[in-house]
């Protein structure tokens, strides 16, 4: 058992709770300033702590670092197991960074129930950080659900006019997915038979392709809805439009990353064969998302909705890169998660700033803002360019890596996705032109104040990062190198070991035959025609782990040192 002896992660995750405790003693009506200050200070300290995490992180290692392992619910084998590797490091940093900005952004935006708002915000941060750091599936699920409730409240209480509809929609969509994931987690627990929810224990499981398929599916819905992958995306525009600015920022910058992170952390390493067989489907869905999101964004009248749909498009890129299963694709997709967090988060901040002044988000209500608010326009310009992937800014590096990766995996996908790059420019530039260029036609825009120091202070760090990642991405790519390399290697080993002749594995009808072949090789009785029956039978007998002679992939895996996503030997 590995426990690094450091409690840094625990401190980082639960520091916001301390803030909540402090807030509880403050009067919600009379001490609003103090409440805001406490929340800001808490998140700021948390961010500084994660910077410490970053500097102490060993980029050369693919192992989990800062691990903490303590028993939690011993009768069920649930452990309190935390740790981060190159995949989660960036996302943890992004979380604490964006939360600081989100708190700052709600400074004057939120005036009613400030105390409750800040408490929800801090609880949300606990949930997000916990989910990124958890290495125990049960613990992960607890944090996963913990995020849901504060977000639901943020939308439902401090949201716009249709907030209740949006909040319930958000809740139901997300809940529907995560319940299936819970089923999957419990299934894995029983399959592993080690009385453990520990990710590392479950990684050492060797599942048959067929079981992998079903488990992949169970996790798929939870993550795909969160991403959101087309066609599960319709909760997103509603939630974004109704959520308060900071809610949108957190939602776009971090909550959506939960889905993509889940794929990278759980789905791909745990079920590589299923990931392979599902890759064509997911890639096509990602492609549809890219083009569909862009096309729909083009005709939106509400800026916030436009940005929301652009998220669908951008996250399509992330998914596409991830399911290319090569270094460039996965690394690009990881970087693009951060990029999207920064630029879309910033876009929501910008929309929020103008909404706070004008109480409208309709594109047609604006026009000619450059003359009136030049600083605002300049920030908007840079962020917009980052969003459309201009070289020299962050979006390009991620998109380019993703497309290079996708091109190696499947040229047609990459070609179609590149069309998305064109469309991305179309809707963004068009919106920008209608909002910023031209003459002021609406008299309400004449008295507009330009950004104040607080707002400049919010956007400047983002712009700095946007340029930094664009010009010198190595700072952010290098820590991910080792982890991504291991992920890709593990995946390829599993895939090559299992089905050397199958490049595109069928999903449903032909699945039985395919599974039969693989299982047949392993010396197991041929499965019945209907996969689900076989599935139940397999669970019932637990034949696939111990009784049967080792399947082909396992034998091959054992011959090669360091085989598998995470070698069992390190525990």
């Amino acid at each position: 058992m590995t426990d690094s002896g450091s409690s840094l992660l625990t401190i980082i995750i639960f520091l916001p709770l301390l803030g909540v405790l402090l807030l509880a003693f403050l009067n919600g009506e009379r001490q609003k300033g103090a409440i805001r200050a406490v929340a800001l200070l808490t998140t700021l300290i948390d961010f500084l702590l994660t910077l410490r995490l970053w500097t102490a992180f060993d980029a050369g290692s693919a192992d989990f670092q800062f691990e903490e392992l303590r028993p939690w619910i011993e009768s069920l084998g649930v452990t309190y197991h935390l740790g981060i590797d190159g995949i989660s490091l960036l996302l943890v940093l992004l979380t604490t960074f964006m939360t600081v900005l989100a708190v700052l952004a709600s400074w004057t935006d939120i005036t009613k129930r400030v105390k409750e708002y800040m408490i929800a915000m801090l609880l949300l941060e606990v949930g997000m950080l916990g989910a990124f750091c958890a290495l125990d599936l049960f613990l992960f699920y607890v944090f996963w659900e913990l995020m849901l409730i504060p977000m639901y409240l943020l939308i439902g209480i401090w949201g716009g006019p249709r907030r209740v509809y949006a909040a319930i929609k958000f809740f139901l969509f997300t809940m529907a997915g995560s319940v299936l994931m819970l089923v999957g987690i419990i299934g894995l627990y029983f399959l592993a038979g080690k009385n453990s929810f520990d990710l590392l224990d479950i990684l050492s499981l060797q599942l048959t392709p067929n079981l992998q398929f079903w488990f992949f599916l169970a996790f798929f819905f939870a993550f795909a809805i969160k991403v959101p992958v087309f066609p599960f995306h319709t909760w997103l525009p509603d939630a974004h439009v109704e959520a308060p600015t900071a809610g949108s920022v957190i939602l776009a910058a971090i909550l959506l990353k939960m889905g993509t992170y889940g794929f990278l952390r759980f789905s791909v390493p745990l079920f590589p064969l299923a990931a392979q067989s599902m890759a064509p489907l997911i890639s096509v869905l990602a492609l549809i998302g890219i083009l569909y999101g862009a096309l729909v964004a083009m005709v939106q009248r509400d800026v916030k909705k436009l940005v929301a749909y652009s998220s669908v498009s951008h996250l399509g890129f992330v998914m596409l890169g991830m399911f290319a299963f090569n270094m460039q694709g996965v690394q690009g997709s990881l970087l693009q998660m951060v990029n999207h967090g920064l630029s879309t988060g910033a876009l929501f901040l910008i929309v929020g700033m103008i909404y706070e002044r004008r109480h409208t988000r309709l594109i047609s209500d604006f026009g000619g803002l450059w003359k009136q608010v030049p600083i605002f326009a300049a920030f908007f310009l840079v962020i917009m360019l980052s969003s459309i992937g201009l070289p020299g800014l962050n979006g390009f590096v991620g998109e380019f890596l993703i497309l290079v990766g996708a091109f190696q995996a499947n040229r047609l996908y990459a070609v179609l996705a590149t069309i998305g790059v064109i469309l991305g420019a179309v809707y963004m530039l068009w919106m920008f032109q209608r909002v910023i260029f031209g003459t002021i036609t609406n008299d309400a825009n004449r008295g507009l104040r330009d950004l104040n120091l607080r707002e400049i202070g919010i956007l400047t760090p983002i712009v700095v990062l946007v340029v930094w990642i664009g010009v010198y991405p190595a700072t952010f790519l290098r820590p991910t190198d080792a982890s991504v390399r291991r992920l890709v290697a593990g995946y390829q080993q599993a895939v090559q070991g299992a089905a050397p002749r199958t490049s595109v594995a069928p999903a449903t009808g032909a699945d039985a035959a395919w599974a039969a072949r693989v299982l047949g090789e392993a010396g197991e009785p041929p499965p019945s025609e209907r996969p689900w029956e076989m599935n139940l039978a397999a669970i019932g007998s637990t034949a696939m782990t111990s009784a049967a002679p080792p399947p082909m992939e396992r034998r091959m895996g054992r011959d090669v040192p360091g085989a598998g996503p995470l070698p069992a030997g390190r525990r």
Partner: protein
Amino acid sequence: MLDLAWLMLALPLLGVFLNLFVTGRMSERGIGWLASAVVGLALLVAVGAFLALLKLPPQQRHIELNVYTWIASGSLSAGFGLLVDQLSIIMALVVTGVGFIIHVYSIGYMHGDPGFRRYFVYLNLFIFSMLILVLANNFLLLFVGWEGVGLCSYLLIGFWYERKSAADAGKKAFIVNRVGDFGFLLAIFLIFALFGSLDFTTVFSKAPQLVQSGVVSGAAITAITLLLFVGATGKSAQLPLYVWLPDAMEGPTPVSALIHAATMVTAGVYMVVRTSALFALAPLSLTVVAGIGLATAFFAATMGLVQTDIKRVLAYSTVSQLGYMFLACGVGAFTAAIFHLMTHAFFKSLLFLGSGSVIHALGGEQDLRRMGGLFSKLRTTGITFWIGALAIAGIFPFAGFFSKDEILWETLQESLFLWAVAAFTAFLTALYMFRLIYLTFHGPSRVSAERAAHIHESPKVMTRPLVVLAVLSILGGFVGLPLIQGGNLFKSFLEPVLARAPLAHGAAAAEAGHAAIGFELFMMIVSLAIAVAGLVMARRFFLQRPELAQRAAEVNAWLYRLLCGKYFVDEAYDLLVVRPVKQLGTILWRGFDVLVIDGIANGAADLIRGASGALRRLQTGYVKSYAVTMVLGAMLLVLYFVMR
């Protein structure tokens, strides 16, 4: 000096930062001269590098400076690295040289504009991006510069953002260029997939061997080169993506001169020449390049004939001249393309700046129909404009003659048909150019009375650049001496860059032509005669007997309408591309998103609500009905057990 090549990039970038953050309170003059000075210093660095390069033996004139690794992931590694060789130094000289002149000119032209500082920030940023483009040592960095200049073009076209037409034009330029970039990006992916590297040196040295050994198929090289050319058609405004360039004239005139005539639009030509090693391996692509180039040259020239906006005539002329450059590339005469690129940079920026001077003098008037007879009032502008026109028309001894003649000559080696069309286009070039001259500077004045009172020659800060450019337009061609035998100074300087590419047919044909010196001289006279014919015809139609032009338009009414409507290409794009895409977006949103997906989600919710609505009737709220139900249930149970 060569080690300091990075200074060329650093100086304009410094200018950007200074003008962005530091010089907030400086006077207009200070800002303008600061911006010009950094470009001027960059020019000095470029000249120094050029001289240093000349000292080296020809085969060593290839210096790479790796600054840092930009993107590294797995086997992909793209550096921020500069390549200084004969080709890039010529481009750098043109960019910084013309750039510096235009910076200075802008100080006068933009005088009093509220966006003065913003203008020079953009302009410096442009020089920076353009230098990245020409100095990059790998495809990805080239693409960075490529997009960077696109951005500056977008910002500068839409510089007067309050005019909707300007904002529209900027957006159009960016998006059309993105369509081209689509091809460029795919080419980069393909190059990386096939060669495992994006560095020019690696790719170009590997390519011939890999093709010969059959590792990389000829079709793949053809695909790469065609995709690269798609990128070039976007940036260099070739068919079918030329539509943005005429609209780009919404930007300030110095911008049109710098970006949309001298430098940025030639990036496509530069890129094709830079990758000549690949193009040489793909004869089909070369044919396509030649065909598109020639077609563009011809069609743009016909459209230029009927334009009434002084800047638009020049814009179509630019498109047409760029077509010539691609024609040269297509027939394998890459040096001729760069030669023409250079001379064109001189005389076209001269013409644009001259037109800017005219517009400035007339207080913003751009319509040829309201000009005329300006020569006497705008002496310097008029004379330099004449020089520019003579140069572009290809009259000896002006610069355009040398470069255009070389292209025509090389084309003739390739195909008589191509030559015939190119020669006819040269005639059209002379025709529209002198039409422009006569309508602007000669004949009766059609200037409105209140404007006529204010006509004045531009300040010295504007006319001096004109003079410098005029001198360059006269002398620029002489680097191509000696004219015949295909072995001029310029060519032999540039040849080593292209030597690695065994030119498929152009070079062989040129060698075959060496025998007939007399024939080459004869062809020069022919092309000179063509240009003079254009001049004479323009004089007759637009100066001596304007009614002839009128009649010609009436006789060929449909042709005239077609030309005036610019072949209705914009309308066709709008109908075939823009509107369907927008409609598709609306259908997907309103139809699919709202109806289908939300329909399913809301439908599921409605189903449950409906079911519970039926069931709720059972819940009357009356204690008694519950009691009755209970009793009935109990009785039924009893009955069931009794009867069993």
